[in-house]
């Protein structure tokens, strides 16, 4: 039976270091290649040696797919491709391809230049790595090779985030990466068509959360900023350069425009400016409002938001400043915070989660006196606010996506085990599909039952349908005004030829005089199949006839004679008749044809 194997190297019952191996119909695909924020040792990257012990990665992997530019989804890419060594294609969307190297470079700088690590990837390696990237468009079907094809769907979350459908023949897997089912101020909602994949690999960060409407949060945020500015206070918003920062910018910018406010808004420079540039370019990836109005004015060409200069922090009067980094642990945001903390008119708004030990975390937990370096005590008089703007789908969103895609099974990654357990139970209960949640390094095997398309020669088809329609019954059916039901299976006489696992059509001349059949294929590439009339019900007599060969009974009821496989299945229409399938490899051609002849002739009745 064909199967799909999934092994998470990272993100299995865990958040961070997303890296999932999928083998589907003989193709191996790696989904995402991220790093882990929590570790600084070898554990920060996935263990690529799991894939092959000593062989080359390029030989084993058919392609690598990156869902979006967050470092926990692409951080290990240069290491993987340049230092471990991979030369195959890497697929990502255009915005991801544009923004990813900026973030990688930033990450490299912090690790190497600030922390002084050695044996890390270099700028050149990032460049070399990006050369291997193939950019894809939304809904574009890309043929990786003759059989493997991938297709990107919009995922919301961040600019350029995509969900990928991986398809080989009739088997398919959808990997969501991170996605967001509710639209925000700059991005739309994730969407997928009803593609009915065999397996849906979905993130489950908020598996146990159902969120409130975004509007309340936005309104609160705007109201707070507005009030502070009206009072003449200054507002500090520590952000990470990409993602939420743009959303908040758009939010404030439109609000300023709507309310005719004059107070300046600043954005700390550097990384952000470059990123904003790409936001301007990739308008098609944003939400409806921005897409529709960009002809008049590109929303990312901010009118009220200007670049920040260090000297501005001391200016009198109200202002709003976005500064990096987001957790107030270093850099510009901390400097500004120190300057403004003493005035109760000012306000700091933390738009995201803060790691324990950072200044951000301390002030959020209510600490009003901070000990800074040099034993200074900083008294925090300014107001501290927390506003969470998350861009992951909540439990309802995940369920909604599953409903849209209608997969045959679901696999959860990128979340905590306990939360996954809940969601898994819910999915199984509500959709009646199997759900898996493998840990890192654990392989899940999903059996599929693909339907194999068979080409049929037109002449044969027409002849057969003519036969059906001229039969006395069908004319009756026509007389009653009924169309012969197309979905109902019909018996057809013909020969099926299979070659190299690919079915080819056969001229109707090669019809077997009488017989009927379904088709099955066997894993080994070179073989031939033949359909046999189903008159035999017993098969143990085979052993008697073929004494010289090793005849084995398999647990599923099929029989092997050397390499020849004989399978018997009940006919779908008529339970009394059985269909026999005999297949063999070239090496056993002689034996195979003998056996077929034997079967056709009819086996001697079994003793039992």
């Amino acid at each position, binding site marked *: 039976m064909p199967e799909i194997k999934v092994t998470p190297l990272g993100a299995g019952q865990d958040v961070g270091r997303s890296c999932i191996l999928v083998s589907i119909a003989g193709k191996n695909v790696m989904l995402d290649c991220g790093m882990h924020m929590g570790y600084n040792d070898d554990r920060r990257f996935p263990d690529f040696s799991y894939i092959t012990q000593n062989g080359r990665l390029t030989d084993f992997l058919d392609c690598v797919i990156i869902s979006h530019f967050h470092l926990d989804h692409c951080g290990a890419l240069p290491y993987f491709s340049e230092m471990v060594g991979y030369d195959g294609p890497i697929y990502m969307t255009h915005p991801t391809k544009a923004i990813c190297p900026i973030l990688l470079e930033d990450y490299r700088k912090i690790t190497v230049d600030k922390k002084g690590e050695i044996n890390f990837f270099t700028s050149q390696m990032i460049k070399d790595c990006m050369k291997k990237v193939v950019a894809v468009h939304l809904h574009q079907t890309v043929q990786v090779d003759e059989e493997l094809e991938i297709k990107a769907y919009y995922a919301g979350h961040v600019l350029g985030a995509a969900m990928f459908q991986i398809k080989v023949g009739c088997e398919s897997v959808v990997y969501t990466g991170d996605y967001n089912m509710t639209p925000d101020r700059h991005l739309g909602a994730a969407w997928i068509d009803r593609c009915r994949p065999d397996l849906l690999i979905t993130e489950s960060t908020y598996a146990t959360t159902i969120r409130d409407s975004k509007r309340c949060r936005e309104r609160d945020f705007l109201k707070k900023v507005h009030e502070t500015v009206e009072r003449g206070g200054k507002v500090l918003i520590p952000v990470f350069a990409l993602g939420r920062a743009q959303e908040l910018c758009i939010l404030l910018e439109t609000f300023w425009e709507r309310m005719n406010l004059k107070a300046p808004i600043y954005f700390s420079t550097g990384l952000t400016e470059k990123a904003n540039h790409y936001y301007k370019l990739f308008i098609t990836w944003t939400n409806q409002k921005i897409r529709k109005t960009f002809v008049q004015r590109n929303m990312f060409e901010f009118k009220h938001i200007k670049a920040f200069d260090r000297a501005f922090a001391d200016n009198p009067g109200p202002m709003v400043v976005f500064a990096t980094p987001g957790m107030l642990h270093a850099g510009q945001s901390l400097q500004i915070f120190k300057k403004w903390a003493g005035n109760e008119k000012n306000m700091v708004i933390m738009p995201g989660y803060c790691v324990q030990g950072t200044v951000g975390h301390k002030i959020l937990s209510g600490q009003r006196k901070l000990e800074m370096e040099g034993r200074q005590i900083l008294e925090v008089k300014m107001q501290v606010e927390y506003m969470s703007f998350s861009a992951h789908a909540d*439990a309802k969103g995940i369920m909604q996506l599953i409903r849209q895609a209608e997969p045959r099974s679901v696999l959860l990654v990128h979340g905590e085990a306990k939360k996954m357990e*809940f969601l898994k139970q819910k999915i199984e209960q*509500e959709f009646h599909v199997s759900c898996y949640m493998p840990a890192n390094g654990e392989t899940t095997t999903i059996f599929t039952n693909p339907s194999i398309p068979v080409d049929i020669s037109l002449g044969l088809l027409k002849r057969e349908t003519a036969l059906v329609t001229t039969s006395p019954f069908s004319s009756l059916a026509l007389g009653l005004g009924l169309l012969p039901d197309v979905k109902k299976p019909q018996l057809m006489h013909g020969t099926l030829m299979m070659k190299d696992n690919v079915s080819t059509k056969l001229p109707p001349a090669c019809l077997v005089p009488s017989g009927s059949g379904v088709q099955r294929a066997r894993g080994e590439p070179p073989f031939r199949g033949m359909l046999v009339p189903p008159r035999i019900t017993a098969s143990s007599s085979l052993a008697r006839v073929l004494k010289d060969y090793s005849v084995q009974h398999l647990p599923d009821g099929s029989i092997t004679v050397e390499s020849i496989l004989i399978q018997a299945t009940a006919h779908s229409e008529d339970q009394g008749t059985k269909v026999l399938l005999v297949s063999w490899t070239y090496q056993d051609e002689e034996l195979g044809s003998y056996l077929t002849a034997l079967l056709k002739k009819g086996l001697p009745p079994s003793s039992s």
Partner: protein
Amino acid sequence: MAAHLKKRVYEEFTKVVQQQHEDLSAKKLRLTKPSKSAALHVDLCKATSPADALQYLLQFARKPVEVESVEGVVRILLEHYYKENDASVRLKIASLLGLLSKTAGFSPDCIMDDAINTLQNEKSHQVLAQLLDTLLVIGTKLTDNPSVRMRLVDVACKHLTDSSHGVRNKCLQLIGCLGPVEKGVAKDVENQAAKDVQKIIGDHFNDQDPRVRTAAIKAMLQLHERGLKLQQAIYSQACKLLADDYEQVRSAAVQLIWVLSQLYPESIVPIPSSNEEIRLVDDAFGKICHMVSDGSWVVRVQAAKLLGSMQQVSSHFLEQTLDKKLMSDLRRKRTAHERAKELYSSGEFSSGRKWGDDAPKEEVDTGAVNLIESGACGAFVHGLEDEMYEVRIAAVEALCMLAQSSPSFAEKCLDFLVDMFNDEIEEVRLQSIHTMRKISHNITLREDQLDTVLAVLEDSSRDIREALHELLCCTNVSTKEGIHLALVELLKNLTKYPTDRESIWKCLKFLGSRHPTLVLPLVPELLSTHPFFDTPEPDMDDPAYIAVLVLIFNAAKSCPTMPALFSDHTFRHYAYLRDSLSHLVPPLRLPGRKLVSSPASPSITPHEDPSQQFLHQSLERVYNLQHLDSQGIQELLDFTIRDLQRLGELQSELAGMADFTATYLQCQLLLIKALQEKLWNVAAPLYLKQNALASAAAKQILEETYKMEFMYSGVESRQVVIIHHMRLQAKALQLIVTARTTRGVEPLFGMCEKFLQEVDSFQRCFISELPHMQGSFVDKLLDLMPRLVTSKPSEVVKILQTTLRQSTFLHLPLPEQLHRATANIIEPTGESDNPLRFTSGLVVALDVDATLEHVQDPQGTVKVQVLYPDGQAQIIHPKPADFRNPGPGRHRLITQVYLSHTAWTEPCQIEVRLLLAYNSNRSKASAKMPKSTWSENLEALPQSENGIEGTIPFSKPVKVYIMPKPARR
């Protein structure tokens, strides 16, 4: 080189011309052919290849065919159809057949048999589909013939088994449009035809092709529209279609379910996988709610729209739509709405929120959480958060309709509507504000909600602000803090956008009169009075102070204890404002003062209304008169006119009527006065003054008649006749005066002719009204018509003069409703002493803001006129988009007028006014005229075509001080 090029150009040009000639001649040849069908026949026979034939057919299709020759053409086409081997030509012929049978006046039953016959042998699916389409056209033209319909439906049923989706599609469409609707009739006609159309269509709900499935559902809907009662059994089938893979199928299925839910709201359906049963409308509501989170936005819009019209749904289900159980890490969490409510009820209003304020509370039972509800849960929460604004607007509209019918739901959806005030798209914001206004009688705003609502007052869009003011007009506020908050925010709005003055005052007027008891405790604070000390008197011209006073005075109207709190200057200000802003400040019963105007007891019904009685009495008095020659009668007229004018000023609802009749009487009076002078007997040159008076009167009457015709809305044809009659009299007077003053007869010929033509056209326009005009000028004139036509101008004039004098006074019947078009320029106010300075030669934009009342079609008629001190006048046509329509009969013009002039030495005033343009061609009279006579007269009466265009100023002019400076060099 250039010369060479030029030559080539010419060469090519000439070539083109030659080709055109050829074309033309070819065309001519065909045009001279006796009949269309013959021409077509020749053409088609000439055609050597299918492509040629197709070309001919395409050309043929461009020209219309007369009714008489349709059948011939059809025969020719059919003949060729049978001969033709090429499918594309046959397709075109089939489509032409359909086109031809649409021809007005042609009855297609004669070609039906042929069309059906062609179906038998047709192999091509496309042609088949086209033929069925043709049959559909034929069928729709012959709907009143049941046997034809039956036959067509039979044909369609036969082809339902076709393998092409296009053919099946058309068949279903045909059945939907023509299938028998009444069961009884179907049985009578044919026993076999009694087969169930619904069943046939229903069988195709499971067709393999989505297009056919869609067509089947659409056909079903079509049957419903034509009045067939759909069976309830379809419901379960339709429900299955909701899960279809194709959006158009789902979209149609949603509609079908909605239709069924309206047909069988109370029947009971079982819930699958449980033993319970619910009402069908509830079940359908749940299903449609489910579609609000569909993958395709088209379906989402459809579903959200339909939700609004499902008012029979039970409240339990309705309230679920706003419910979304929040949780975080498997613990129950409250929504921000719930938190705000709690915060409010606990008495604490503003608190700096801390991290973890929204921390989840109790644990959730994992088994009980249902992530995908089958029911209506959270449908609107999703709809309002949707990515596409079309869906959001549809959801807001649905919310509005449901809330209007259910007060408890209105209360619940308030939070969500308030949230929508911050949507990123202005349309959505506006829509939600309007929605809120519509349901405002059902709701009371909490303070925190009011806070959010008021925050929007700072929006830079004028529409939003004004919509919000309107909303506040009819909002219920629960606390005095709320009122205070609203006032503060409105004043803030006033300082930020001074142009909103009028609308803010109006808003405060209603706010005050709705909440007198809440305003009462605020009065000392608002007027900043002090128990011991006198406070300085505020500036009377400060719009903010006026705003506060408007609020207080309107509250004081129903709160008699309030005036005791006023200080002296407040009373003075009251008197001033009552006079200057009487529409905003109500009459108050003030202690120790005489009531300014005794308010009549409002219980009087309009029938007993004394002013109405007065109007009718005075009119009756006047209409009893027959001839108006005597001095006393003229005085009576004078008094009546004066009375009416005063009445119009006092009683705004009767102003239209009073003014209208006063104008009419005035015209009559002028006419009499001009005619009755004995001085007519004296030789003309001696009495220039008299002539001047008469011609001035004629001119004024003409003007007034145009005003009467075009400035009043609600004028009916009865009045139009009288007005035109009056105009005719004025023209006669004009003719008489001219005849007396001009020497020579030559110019008079033309004038007489023209006048007689006008009489003629008057007769034709109002022939039906003539019997009512016994003894009038025109009546007598028409009697004398044969004589007039033949006589000389001087005689004509004499006859006219005598008839004018002898004619009786016509009664002007009053219509039910009559309103005079008025305009009021709000901006510019004309008060500013600061000249608008600009460099000469450049333009300056002047904002004009005006309200128009009772103007029909303001886009076409209202113009802005700018008069410069040098007498130069400029007329500006505002853009259609500059007109808003805030209510029935009311319009608002917000536009910009560009001014420019050469340099002046000192600032000077220009005048801005609004004009109402009219065109006598568009007059109501010509619109009433039967079409046929109109077109006949076109050649005969060219002068009636060039109707008189003109403008009526209908607003007070406003002066604007401007100063074009010379450009600096």
